[in-house]
């Protein structure tokens, strides 16, 4: 039996049994954050908070939702929206949250790309973050199936058809994923399971991993400056707060995070209460009908760029392009051959690479929403080719980059 002293407080009692003091130091009061950062460094905690809100609103939706092709549509559009007290609130929060979580993920990603926060010991942060992006995408797609409207059905049809692999004609695989020849009851119930259990579990696990990968290399700063965190921490602990380059994560940095979150949640709830329609496609208010395709099928805005990469090519080439586009961002830390960890503005050609990539993805996003006709097809094709040209150019231009 281990030896225990009589505790004088609840805190001491817990500390003896759970080492809460050590835990608090490691994760909060002695987890050091550089001072030289800006509001973009708050996006991580903004994402964590949004995930929390999605979880809570999801729990309330789950109490009335019915995963059955005969009753799903009404359980959402009738029961939750008109009968359940404040049911509309949970649905609008859930829809707006799903959209905003991707907006912040993209900002978070491009912040990391701009400041070079995926390099020199920070590769795992980038990889686990990309993994989160992929799992969040699967979570968003599976959730989109649940109201069982026309867009749910046809998005399910088109996306599962991707797995036939074009000329490979792997229809057996597609039918296996669906559990039927077309998306039907078995399809809805299994995507329901994925959306409410398996994928959220995976997301929570990968979030823990993502935080873990951050602990040792620490977060980057606005200049990509490399410095001794131990030394800076000693200064801070010695009371020389001004001279030190760091602040503790909690409560000092977290209070700044909370301020940014405050601004963000004004936007969040403004959208939830006054502009929720943007996250509610009108076509999805028609019940699923396997014998009628909607005039235009397009995904939610956050998938449009990769959807547009699929569109302008022939079927096989389009599938290959689409598959490559989904995973190419994983390779970023290895395709960037430059030793410099610095903001893109100081990195010569990479500056142009960054801004062209950002603009190109915006162009792809807009073209993805427009019908596949005439000039839009051409612009889409050029933007898709530019996307791949940029990735081919990346190792070349970063290799020739001068060391700062």
């Amino acid at each position, binding site marked *: 039996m281990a030896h225990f002293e009589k505790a004088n407080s609840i805190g001491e009692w817990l500390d003896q049994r759970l080492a809460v003091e050590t835990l608090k130091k490691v994760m909060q009061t002695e987890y050091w954050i550089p001072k030289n950062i800006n509001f973009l460094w708050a996006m991580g905690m903004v994402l964590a908070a949004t995930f929390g809100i999605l979880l809570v609103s999801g729990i309330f939706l789950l109490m009335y939702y019915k995963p059955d092709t005969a009753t799903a549509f009404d359980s959402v559009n009738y029961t939750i929206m008109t009968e359940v007290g404040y049911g509309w609130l949970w649905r609008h929060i859930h829809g707006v949250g799903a959209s905003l979580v991707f907006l912040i993920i993209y900002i978070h990603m491009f912040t990391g790309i701009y400041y070079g926060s995926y390099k020199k010991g920070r590769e795992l942060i980038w990889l686990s973050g990309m993994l989160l992006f992929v799992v969040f995408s699967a979570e968003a797609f599976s959730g989109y199936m649940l109201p069982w409207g026309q867009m749910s059905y046809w998005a399910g049809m*088109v996306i599962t058809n991707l797995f036939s692999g074009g000329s490979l004609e792997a229809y057996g695989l597609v039918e296996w994923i669906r559990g039927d*020849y077309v998306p039907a009851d078995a399809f809805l119930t299994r995507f329901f399971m994925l959306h409410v259990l398996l994928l959220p579990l995976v997301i929570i696990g990968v979030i823990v991993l993502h935080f873990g990968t951050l602990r040792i290399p620490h977060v980057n700063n606005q200049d990509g400056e490399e410095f001794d965190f131990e030394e800076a921490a000693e200064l801070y602990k010695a009371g020389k707060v001004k001279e030190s380059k760091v602040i503790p994560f909690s409560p000092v940095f977290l209070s700044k995070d909370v301020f940014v979150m405050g601004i963000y949640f004004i936007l969040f709830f403004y959208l939830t209460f006054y502009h929720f329609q943007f996250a509610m496609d009108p076509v999805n208010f028609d019940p699923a009908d396997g014998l009628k395709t909607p005039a235009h*099928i397009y995904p939610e805005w956050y998938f449009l760029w990769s959807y547009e990469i699929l569109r302008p090519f022939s*079927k096989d080439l389009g599938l290959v392009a689409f598959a490559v586009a989904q995973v190419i961002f994983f390779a970023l830390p290895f395709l960037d051959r430059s030793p410099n960890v610095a903001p893109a503005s100081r990195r010569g050609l990479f500056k142009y690479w960054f801004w062209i990539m950002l603009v190109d993805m915006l162009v792809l996003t807009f073209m993805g929403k427009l019908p596949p006709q005439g000039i839009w097809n051409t612009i889409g094709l050029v933007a898709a080719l530019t996307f791949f040209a940029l990735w081919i150019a990346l190792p070349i231009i970063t290799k020739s980059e001068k060391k700062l």
Partner: protein
Amino acid sequence: MSNRRDFMGMALGGFTALGGVAALYAMKRSWDPLPSVKAAGFTTVDVSGAQENVLNVEKWRGKPIFVLKKSKDMKADDRDVIVGSDRFHVSIGLCTHLGCIPAYIPDDHKFLCACHGGEFDASGHEIFGPPPSPLEIPPFKVDGTTIVLGESGPEYKKMLDAGLTV
């Protein structure tokens, strides 16, 4: 001592792997289409009342089936299904690109898919856009003035052998 421990480790690892593979197989089988889904299956279409150049959409295994009676001025094709003296175009009404349902434009005698702009002629051949192959023909059997979907008749088998559909 260490040998005994190694043996225990390998024995445990072996049985665990075996159980793991068995569990994976069970999981794979649980995702398979149910027997009731697979068995659900024959649709009989009576085409005696069909009008020329008017698309009729039937449902077979949850999928839309195009049945189009061709008029005399429409080009004959090896893929046509002949019932009595009439020629019919019969196909699974899902674009071979990614599975949207193309719309029929009677004036142009062609199918147009809104999703990615693919086009097919009235015999189901791809004529524009991303579709890589003609509209598929479902297994069928001609029985008097009806077409039975889901059953492979001699005409269907001939088309299959000739590579006119997959």
